[in-house]
């Protein structure tokens, strides 16, 4: 889908729910920023995730700052899987379990918007009921080990391999 204001692809899909019937906007990133920071647009309900998010941030920040802040947060990357927040916003899918921690501040309003809650109630796994974060670090360690091997830094690679084994063993039940 093309942006309603230019030829670029629309990556923001905003639904305004204020006044009578819902209005839909399909905009590219630049025009979405302009739209959200334009003083004429009062904050309103939004249905898509990206719109909800952008709106939340626009509300929290002074109007002019929002665009810059949005761009800055977009570049933030997860240290475990390397996905940037911008990539997540575009595809709507996270890169690894650690993203929930790496992007905690950005995701929190989004999660509240979707679920109206931010605290899990219900089934807990028998393994790692305190959270599986240590095991998720294996993603980063394996990546670093592969890099070390590629760079022929075998000392570092073997250190990483030991650490990987230690975690893998400790989690075996």
């Amino acid at each position, binding site marked *: 889908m093309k942006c309603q204001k230019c030829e670029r692809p629309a990556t923001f899909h905003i639904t305004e729910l204020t006044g009578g019937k819902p209005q839909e906007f399909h905009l590219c990133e630049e025009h979405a920023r302009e739209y959200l920071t334009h003083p004429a647009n009062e904050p309103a309900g939004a249905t898509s995730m990206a719109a909800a998010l952008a709106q939340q941030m626009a509300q929290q920040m002074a109007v002019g700052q929002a665009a810059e802040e949005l761009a800055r947060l977009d570049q933030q990357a997860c240290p475990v899987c390397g996905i940037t927040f911008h990539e997540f916003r575009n595809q709507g*899918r996270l890169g690894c379990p650690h993203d929930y921690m790496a992007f905690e501040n950005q995701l929190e309003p989004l999660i509240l918007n979707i679920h109206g809650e931010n605290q*899990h109630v219900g089934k807990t*796994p028998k393994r790692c009921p305190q959270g*599986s974060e240590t095991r*998720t670090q294996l993603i980063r360690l394996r990546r670093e080990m592969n890099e070390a091997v590629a760079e022929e830094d075998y000392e570092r690679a073997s250190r990483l391999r030991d650490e990987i084994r230690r975690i893998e063993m400790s989690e075996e039940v």
Partner: protein
Amino acid sequence: MGEWLRGSGPESDIVMSSRIRLARNLADFPFISRANDQDRARIEKSLRECLLSSERAGQLLYVDVERLPGIDRQFLVERHLISREHAESRGARAVAIDRGETFSVMVNEEDHLRIQVMHSGLNLQEAWREINRIDDLVEGKLTYAYHPRLGYLTACPTNVGTGMRVSVMLHLPALVITRQIEKVFRSLQKISLAVRGLYGEGSQAMGDFYQISNQITLGRSEEDLIKQVSDIVPVIINYERQARDYLIRESHENLHDRVSRAYGILRTAQTISSEETMHLLSSVRMGVNLGLIEDLEIPTINELFIRTQPAHLQKLSGVELDTADRNIERARYLRRHLNKEHGSGQDTN
């Protein structure tokens, strides 16, 4: 034929099936969108080993979806055993199906693991007991991505928490005819329930089938989520029954005419599209439930909904067919199955 098509569960005149699915991910691999070929292969391998070494292994059919021909993937979609996304994506992926087709486990779909259990009629409690057992079985061997505050971590934040989608597939032709269906949807959306078509997200409401499911997955227990859907379904069933009563009372001839014509077309057509078939079967299904058609059984109709779809038709006839040939084959298949019970030899083919 899957158990869920038997038309035997509670309220099965209106509730086609009850389904629960759980989204789970392994803690030590990237989510699918970020996983490379090696990751995908390793995830697939560890889940395959886990599933095939479980006590359920004997009843399982493990299918390598990546290597499966397109028509077979479509066949599984039509049987609701894999999603369209799973059929159409690429890379190492699989599905484990139990022989009774009550449950299937998709490997490397949007999440590493998508477990689903389906039952005929309104039967969510049984589905939950079963899926919970399967989930425990996997979790006994592998570590899921889990956060003490956010629950089970999923590729999309819309599934985080319980990772659970509870859905009930309803057949609501009378609400469609009386144009009340939109009203029902609007009130469902107000209480955060989603309405989808026959094949889930983004699909059309073919044959007047609608899936009602929870939208929220975080902050409520599995039992609460099941209860929310279980509580609302009888209300919708009641609306549909009232609409059927109204049609019988106020326009009996029109309703009977509609049902009979639908049955007539299905039994005599020489070429027919999938869309028209679904539409007409829907009227016939309601007609059987209302006693307007007496020589047909619900399971037969339920089965026809599935077997007249493109991949099923081609598998049944054993050859690949283009759209025009499929329409001819579909009409032939319908004539054969809808006329045989009369033994009158009306089928000219």
